[in-house]
């Protein structure tokens, strides 16, 4: 799991920072965080989210801290889901990542402040939903071999 997490995070920053892609590349950092949060459990998901958020915030001039807050919250709630849901089906994973991405975009939208944010409809409902489906799909594809091996074991 540690290898998968590291690979997803490196790929995320390669695509978004190295190649400068925006919506064309999925939010792999969030996928990595949500998968890791269920592994490390409550207490540490927030820390992982904070570290990833800080990396993303270092490239934002006026909305510093917004990504850190959004990913910390996603990590905390992701870790908590382990107490609430034991499911590791693909359907559960799809919903889990999609909801996590929507929550992340919503918190980020709130935290960037009124002057910087785009309309709610565009930023969260339209772009956020599309991003959530994209991330969920990629999350399922990425986690499928991992879940399968886990079940076999």
């Amino acid at each position, binding site marked *: 799991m540690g290898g998968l997490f590291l690979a997803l995070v490196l790929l995320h920053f390669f695509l978004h920072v190295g190649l*400068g892609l925006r919506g064309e590349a999925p939010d792999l950092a969030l996928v990595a965080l949500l998968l890791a949060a269920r592994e490390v459990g409550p207490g*540490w998901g*927030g820390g992982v989210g904070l570290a990833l958020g800080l*990396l*993303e915030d270092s490239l934002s001039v006026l909305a510093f801290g917004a990504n850190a807050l959004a990913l910390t*919250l996603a990590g905390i709630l992701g870790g908590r889901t382990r107490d609430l849901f034991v499911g590791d089906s693909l359907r559960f994973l799809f919903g889990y990542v999609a909801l996590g991405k929507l929550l992340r975009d919503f918190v980020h939208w709130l935290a960037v402040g009124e002057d*910087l944010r785009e309309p709610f409809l565009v930023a969260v409902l339209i772009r956020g939903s599309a991003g959530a489906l994209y991330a969920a799909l990629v999350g399922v594809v990425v986690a499928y071999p991992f879940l399968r091996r886990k079940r076999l074991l």
Partner: protein
Amino acid sequence: MPWNQVPLEDASRRRSLHLDFFWLLLSAVLLYLPAEAQALLAGAVRFTLLRPFLEVQAGVVRVRVLMEETTRIQARMDSLAALVVAQGTVEEENRRLRALLGVSPAMRVGFVPARVVRPGTPGSESVFLLDVGRQHGVSAGDPVVMREGRIGLAGLVREVSRSSAVGIDWSHPDFRASAMTWDGKVFGLVEPVRGTFREEDRLLLNGVPFYERVDPGTLIVTSGLGGVFPRGIPIGTVQELAEEEGGWRKSYWLRPLVQPGSLVHVLVLREDPLARRLLEDLLRADSAVSADTLPPAPMGSAGPEGSPGGGGV
């Protein structure tokens, strides 16, 4: 179990709750840190953990620029050579006229060519990184221009480190520029207006006196009054009247000369103490001389780094 001993599961749950609270508190602290501390922290992360990724993008941009620009530069060089030959006497004539009018020499501005690196992470919209920094003479507040058909204002530098800088383009909510029509007759303030989608972001020339009329197609340039941009950098052309407010003020939509999405290779106008002094002299002298001697494309003769650029007047 003794009465004062907490069950292991409860203790673990409590510890994880405390940890969650701690991370949340830490992220909230980051959000409300003073801007200087945030910039310091962001810079440290950029120059350590994200450095390899930023270098990858700098490399990608370098290759793209090399591929795209070669033929364009060749064509530009040919047309510039033709222009220089055709306007050989203009400089001499201008110098003589300035001497006759008692106007100081035009301001010389140094240019630093730079490559633009665009991070694709949330919250970094309207922000770009430059591969030049303090060691190249770049400082915070320096204007960033780009040639897209003609030289136009793209944005400005916000933070500078030793070898790189962070800038904002004109679509950033903090962007403002004191502006005027190219003939210096009408003044106003240029600011961005958010569209429903980022692609719909536009520039607005605000605060134009009600009795003034600006025709569509008029070139709007920086006025130099705000103290941030030197006078004479083209911003855009007037598109249409946006609003007439209460019979005392008008605003106009502008068509920007530079589209933020096309920023790849830019020029940073360096702040130069000599240039600043000359600008002050010039503004003093200008109070006696009409501003309608301003050429339509004042920054059009941009030269390479260190060479004198076209006058910001």
